[in-house]
């Protein structure tokens, strides 16, 4: 079985990074075949930028794009009148590697398919909040 490398990035490490620094921090790792697990999420503009940058970086024979998954929690506003979703974990990996098995608002299960021909699979993450 081949190796799978996962990079966990804390929110502190991302705090002072610019949007483009964050995007390239993710893309460069994912292009090497790593799975990036980030504490927190990207802004909507950063998510759009991640898609744009991914499209520019696609090399049809070696890198076909990314898969992005998030886990969210309900946050109540300051006055407690409204609820909104806040991303607590963002997972980005190579699209040809990751396969979602099950996704709900508070549960995510994925399999990393390291070798499609041999169906060699690693149970990547089962997370329940």
């Amino acid at each position, binding site marked *: 079985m081949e190796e799978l490398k996962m990079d966990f990035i804390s929110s502190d490490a991302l705090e002072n990074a610019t949007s483009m620094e964050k995007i390239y921090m993710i893309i460069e790792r994912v292009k090497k075949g790593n799975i990036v697990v980030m504490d927190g999420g990207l802004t909507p*503009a950063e998510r759009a930028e991640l898609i744009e940058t991914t499209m*520019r970086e696609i090399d049809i024979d070696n890198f076909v794009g990314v898969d992005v998954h*998030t886990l969210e929690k309900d946050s109540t506003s300051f006055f407690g009148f409204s609820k909104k979703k806040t991303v607590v974990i963002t997972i980005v990996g190579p699209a040809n590697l990751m396969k979602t098995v099950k996704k709900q608002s508070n549960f995510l299960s994925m399999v990393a398919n390291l070798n499609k021909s041999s169906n060699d699979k690693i149970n990547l993450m089962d997370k329940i909040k």
Partner: protein
Amino acid sequence: MAWFDFIKRFFGKKNKMSIGLYGNPNSGKTTLANKISKDWMGKEIGSSSNIPHETRTVLKEEKVTIKEGNKELDFDIIDTPGIATKVDYQNFLEYGLDEDEAKNRAKEATKGIIEAIKWLDDVTGVLLVIDSTTDPLMDTNITIIGNLEARKIPFIIAANKIDDEKSNPNRIVSVFPQHTVIPISALKGKNIENLYKEMIKKFK
């Protein structure tokens, strides 16, 4: 003269409604754009197919007017390529394309996705087309909605393909309860009148 052109463009842009059709590949954006264009302009604007990324460049139909009683909505239709986080040419081989065609389609699709995202700067309203036979919690739907909310662009979610027996528009309503969701079949024209009513209400 340059100042005059600038002022004309500036005010002209403010008054002009450009409604973008956004969504994942194969959600039925071009089918819906064709339905709207055919109903109100008498002609289609693009070709649709079962092969993902059939629309790889932005298609535009200008000066469309839809009417409901004494109310009218004038706008341009901006049919955008489907937004995805991955484009694998091997997926196109399953639809009978040869390798060169598939690779070429993949290259064009990546450019189309960038173009679609750039158009978010210019659209003044959006129809987000979601295939109601699939999971609506896809990252691309969440990214599009997040960007529309952040930019304060009004939008309607068209829960498409309700003619399909696997369709579950209620799932889309439950996932996005704070947004307007209209179940439709762009292909069969089912419930399309309600979408037109909501467009006049939301975008007028």
